[in-house]
């Protein structure tokens, strides 16, 4: 009896442990797969948006839509930014905070993204780097990074409206933390390049 019982546990564990492992790896890679795959789907929606359509949903049941494209030429990075920074839109791309200035509008444009997917590249940015935003009417705004800092999640004044035109990128910090939900944030502030009094 004890022998059979032990055997049962052994066999059980032999099955359960790898299965759980596979399940967890599945969950982990699903997040990445979704993040990468979604950006491809978003490309189509973005080109539709550039053609003049408004709030193009990348898939029929989506509750978000692309609002601008963010590129960093030095790193060869290109990301389609979605409307809203809720958990459901951040899974597919960086999110533009509702209520902050839309790209191209005067004020503080705030974009947040996950530190382990779309905004992982933020750790490679340096002060002085160029960032470009392509707006939905096809225009391009070039920003230069003026400030990079680590802040606490309660310092919400970084989201406040400003008179000056700035771009604020937010992601979680530290970049290599294992679990999510930490209180620190990494923020990158960029100001537009001005030529002949006009933004380029």
């Amino acid at each position, binding site marked *: 009896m004890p022998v059979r019982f032990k055997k049962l546990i052994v066999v059980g564990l032999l099955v359960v442990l790898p299965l759980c*492992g596979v399940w967890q790896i599945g969950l982990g890679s699903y997040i990445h*797969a979704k993040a990468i795959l979604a950006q491809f789907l978003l490309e189509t929606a973005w080109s539709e948006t550039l053609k003049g359509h408004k709030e193009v949903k990348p898939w*029929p049941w989506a*509750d978000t839509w692309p609002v601008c494209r963010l590129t960093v030429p030095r790193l060869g990075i290109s990301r389609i930014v979605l409307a809203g920074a809720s958990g459901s839109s951040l899974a597919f791309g960086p999110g533009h905070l509702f209520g902050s200035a839309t790209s191209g509008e005067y004020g503080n444009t705030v974009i947040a993204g996950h530190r382990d997917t779309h905004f992982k590249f933020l750790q490679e940015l340096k002060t002085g780097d160029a960032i470009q935003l392509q707006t939905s009417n096809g225009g391009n705004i070039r920003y230069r990074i003026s400030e990079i800092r680590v802040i606490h999640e309660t310092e919400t004044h970084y989201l406040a409206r400003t008179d000056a035109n700035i771009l604020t990128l937010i992601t979680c910090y530290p970049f290599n933390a294992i679990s999510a939900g930490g209180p620190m944030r990494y923020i990158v502030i960029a100001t537009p390049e001005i030529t002949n009094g006009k933004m380029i």
Partner: protein
Amino acid sequence: MKFQKPGLIMLSTLRCIFAGIITGTLTNCILVLLVMLLSAPAGATAMDDMTAADMNRIEDPSHVRQGTLLFKGEQDFSRAPILRTDVQINVTGMIARATVKQHFRNPDTTWKEGIYVFPLPEDAAVDHLRMHIGQRVIEGRIQERQQARKEYEQARSEGKKASLVEQERPNIFTTSVANIGPHEEIVIEIEYQHVVQYDTGAFRLRFPMVVAPRYIPGQPVTPNEITVDTFDGSGWAVSTDQVRDASRITPPVLHPGQGKINPVNLQVHLDAGFSLQHITSSYHNIDIKQENETGYRLTLGNNTHADRDFELIWTPEPAEQPRAAFFSEHKNGKQYGLIMMLPPEQTSGEVLNREVIFVIDTSGSMSGTSIVQAKAGLELALAKLKPGDRFNIIQFNSYTELLFQIPQPVTHQSLRQAGNYVRNLQAQGGTEMATALQAALNQTTEHAAVRQVIFLTDGSIGNEDELFRIIRQQLGNSRLFTVGIGSAPNSHFMSRAADFGRGTYTYIGKVEEVQEKMQILFNKLQHPVLTDIQLTWGDNLTVEAWPQKIPDLYLGEPLLISLEAASLPETLHISGMVSNSKWNSTMKLQNGKKQTGISVLWARKKIAALMDQLNSRTEQDEVRQMIIDTALAHHLVSKFTSLVVIDVTPARVREEILKSQSMPVNLPAGWEYEKVFGQLPQTATGSELFLIRGMLLLVTGLLFAVFSRKFTRCYACQV
């Protein structure tokens, strides 16, 4: 046998790895596809839910997404002046006279101006200001607001020590102190007086300690549009078109993680004039010492910080329950009086069918202990509904949402639906109160004889006047009952909204009080009300009595009248209506107790009444002038008059810089900081944790496979 072992282990290991990789990849692929597909119906259901909720949701486009301006300014308060407060309150009969000493200490080596926003009871008559510099004491003077500010600012720039006390709301004041030297302490002493509340057999004294963060609705206005004088960088809310002085009523709030500041010492000397059955402090530990037959000395426990209201309740021995009181004062050739009279309890008449609209505040400021209290109160009120009544529930934060499109009859079904709705309420978002108030007042009323709106909120808003206007204009035949929730409710809003709404107000400060306080409210709702109260003074004397329009009186509420006359009238005749029958009473005004400060109370009552007229009458300049005249004559701080004190000798030489700093306040007890001020978005996924956990599990499984082989083999050998 022995040689086969490593081969077998290798084999099983490989098998395991392969199985892991293959199943892993396969599952991943299937999962990705599956979840992509599965998320479709999930998304669709979410949308269905949305539309269901949206049906009863009222959105006013001009309100939505505008007012969420609760961003906080400066973080580093280490160099701002440090505050400590000593409070001494003397209660004689029904009158409380309080001295508040604010100690401003400069921890820095530079010169400072400290700006402190603090609360006082909403009926406080502030009539004295003194500045203590070392051993010297300088008495303040009352001035028109602009003039007082001008004098203060001039003294500030000349390097003289000066202080200014201004009123922002009847229950919010600002103390400014200029030119506090390096490591110096200046003490500002403020004196005020008010009437203690007498209701349902108990006397209540309230001393608020902190101005809770206020929600500021409306569109931001740029500084040059602001007509009210502002101070730089002190408030965290931007002034808006609806609340032009927002930055003056929103002091910066310290994150609770940084500890508590602003310690308070408080002592009450209580002489009620009769022997007491109970004395209790509702929210603080106090030490009670009896000094003589009717006198007590009460001391607040050490280590108290300004983060909630202080409330003291005392009840007389049943035999000594006062039914009437008369206090008088002779001052500057005039007679002043304060009359209190408790109408006899009316037996309840026929039970009328009611329509009850519950309005519950589910904004971010209610998060924490407040929403628990509000839900408990609401659940209790639902249980009190009777068949034949109709009801509805309205919740509001950034949006207003109605449980039912129109009020529903009380049935098992509707009550169950309401119960579920209340249980699932969550507090977050803004406080767009106006839409909810309008919805509550404007719903159909055909079915019920009595219409009651029960409004549960902490009143943490900055646009009181706009809301009062809505109540005045749209009340109709509804009655509004405010229930103030939480540790630091806006008492000005609670009491005035109930006045304009011809109802009453109730406070619930902790969940243990819900049962008792709501029961008092239910009793008031069920008993007939004394309405249309008229006063006739004997001897044809000219008497100026305030309030001029006497509010309706509910069960247990006394009539309170302040009067001024050349000589005191001998009698007062009072008449009113109780459920369609006339009620009369006559009082002989003789042998009243002489007491100082009665004139001040009269002036404060008059100013309060005139301030209401200011919002409704057209000849505003005239009313404004009357307020200023009354305030100046009685040395009172008002919206248009301030107390200012200036030391004549300059202290700071012009070369030294003066830094102006607004002083932080605590977050009220039980509040959740992040729910009020927001927080930056969550920007990390659990992917790495999942991957690492998965790998670990696989490796463990592998090792286990290896060892279990060994184990079963050896076991077999033995057999």
